[in-house]
């Protein structure tokens, strides 16, 4: 018999929230979740699930929710709440099930707070019809019952005073966010980071939407300081990164990507970082890569480059130069030349690589910058084997970036493609011109 559950979400990065919930539901094969009551402007979402285990699986990894509760009832006033709880189909079952459990009450709220105004003891007393006989235990109780008040905020900065609704439920699972993931991976506390490091919150969300799984292989071809490797490692994948710029992945002294993993107690998850041009890839072709998650270079901090000579004539015959009897290019300190490359071409290569290396249903997720200033249609790169599953936008002032998530559907899929087309209308130049 399915039961009702209340998902309590956060009202940040709302453009990513449903994608995260859907991806985690899909990951745990919870295909019966109905999103028809899901609303972007509300932190509450009531769903039906078969049991607590499903609720735990679903929300445990979530970054954009706070928790999931067994739903007992709601009301505009406390009186209404109480009568709704008592009228609930499962009321008698719930009452007898938790009759002897140790428990405590918690109070939570959204959009305002009753602090000071609500007499909590009296409020708890008003639930005496639940007839709980177990001991109250503030530390490690068997069950946590939660009163959640929803207020209407006066505006973004001023909390509301008038409660709109009150919910009551039994806590089933707190989210990863609530359990400290954001603090743990906060960039401020990370030993090795750089100007291109990706913030903790959205990198973890990206890993969830990409469905990074424990014991599988995740690859970031533009690893930089390893932000996405850390996010993938957090969810138990064996992570491999590469970057054409060896300085970034090497770190400095004791500040290295490896040191970050050590600090997080996740050294096992970190396989290696390689100095490598993604477009001249050395990962063997038959190695299955379960997930590809990355933030490709936009060409803002440094222009996009791949191996090769910009002016091949200048390098003609250089391969024959010898130093101390050994070809110059075979010396340990040889630095190969690189040539400029376009973002469009790089993303085409990325999609092609994903279509060759991901297993069926495996996901590719990457961030793409878009200028908002001109009325130019944003063209999303497409590959005939890859289904574009999500296109989540994070808006900034004059530009935005998108998390694009693709699923490998194989050669039978025959989707639309736009490889080889110029799409991004030179994001870098326009970024530096201030986007007019």
């Amino acid at each position, binding site marked *: 018999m399915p039961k009702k559950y209340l998902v309590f979400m956060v009202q940040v990065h709302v453009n990513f929230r449903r994608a995260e919930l859907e991806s985690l539901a899909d990951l745990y094969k919870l295909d019966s979740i109905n999103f028809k009551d899901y609303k972007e402007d509300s932190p509450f979402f009531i769903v039906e699930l078969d049991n607590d285990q499903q609720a735990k699986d679903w929300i445990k990894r979530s970054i954009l929710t706070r928790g999931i509760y067994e739903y007992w009832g709601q009301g505009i006033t406390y009186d209404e709440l109480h009568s709704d709880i008592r009228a609930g189909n499962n009321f008698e079952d719930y009452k007898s099930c938790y009759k002897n459990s140790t428990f405590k009450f918690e109070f939570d709220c959204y959009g305002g707070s009753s602090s000071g105004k609500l007499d909590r003891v009296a409020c708890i007393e008003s639930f005496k019809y639940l007839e709980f006989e177990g001991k109250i235990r503030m530390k490690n109780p068997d069950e946590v019952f939660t009163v959640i008040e929803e207020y209407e905020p006066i505006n973004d900065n001023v909390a509301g005073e008038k409660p709109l609704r009150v919910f009551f439920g039994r806590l089933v699972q707190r989210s990863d966010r609530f359990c400290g993931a954001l603090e743990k991976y906060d960039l401020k506390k990370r030993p090795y980071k750089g100007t291109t490091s990706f913030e903790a919150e959205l990198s973890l969300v990206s890993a969830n939407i990409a469905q990074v799984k*424990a*014991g*599988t*292989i995740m690859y970031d071809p533009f690893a930089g300081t390893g932000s996405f490797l850390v996010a993938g490692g957090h969810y*138990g994948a*064996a992570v*491999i990164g*590469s970057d*054409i710029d*060896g300085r970034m*992945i*090497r770190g400095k002294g004791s500040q290295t990507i*490896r040191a970050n993993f*050590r600090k997080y107690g996740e*050294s*096992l998850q970190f*396989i*290696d*970082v*390689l*100095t*490598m*041009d993604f477009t*001249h*890839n*050395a*990962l*063997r*072709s038959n*190695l*299955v890569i379960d997930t590809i998650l990355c933030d490709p270079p936009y060409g803002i901090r440094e222009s996009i480059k*791949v*191996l*090769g*000579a910009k002016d*091949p004539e200048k*390098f003609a015959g*250089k*391969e024959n130069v010898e130093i101390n009897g050994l070809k110059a*290019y*075979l010396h*340990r300190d*040889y630095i*190969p*030349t690189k040539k400029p490359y376009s973002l469009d071409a790089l993303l085409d290569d990325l999609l092609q690589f994903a279509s060759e290396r991901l297993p069926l249903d495996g996901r590719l997720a990457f961030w793409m910058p878009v200028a908002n200033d001109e009325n130019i249609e944003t063209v999303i790169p497409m590959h005939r084997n890859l289904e574009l599953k999500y296109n989540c936008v994070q808006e900034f002032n004059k530009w935005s970036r998108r998390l694009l998530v693709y699923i490998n559907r194989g050669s039978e899929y025959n989707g639309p493609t736009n490889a080889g087309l110029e799409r991004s209308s030179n994001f870098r130049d326009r970024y530096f011109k201030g986007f007019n």
Partner: protein
Amino acid sequence: MKFLTTNFLKCSVKECDRSNDNFPLRYNGEKCQLEQDESIEFNPEFLLRIIDRVDWDAVLSVASDLGNSSLPPKKPIFESEQLSDEDMVILRDLHTLLIQTNIIEGEMTCKNCGHIYYIKNSIPNLLLPPHLA
């Protein structure tokens, strides 16, 4: 660079993909400096899933390059439901070899084109000169 990673790396030169000699690379035993990182914890479940991905012939080839010829000729098979004490001993050995063994300095060569790649500060450099790119 972990021993495990030697199992993932082929030559970056695209033309070498047409040969069967671009994987694994050949490791120069005399120039490879190894180090054990014993702080990396042993997790049999994780390791089993990684071993699934491993090409055993390549493990044997690289181990022999680095002077270890004591490995079983066939990839060990585990009944993942119930690991015996004997299984655990083998898994621990594989953990030591694949996960804890690092090549911190060294050289590796493509058996097809002969290009030499270097490992510096535990990081392999797979970049190519323009005439090979």
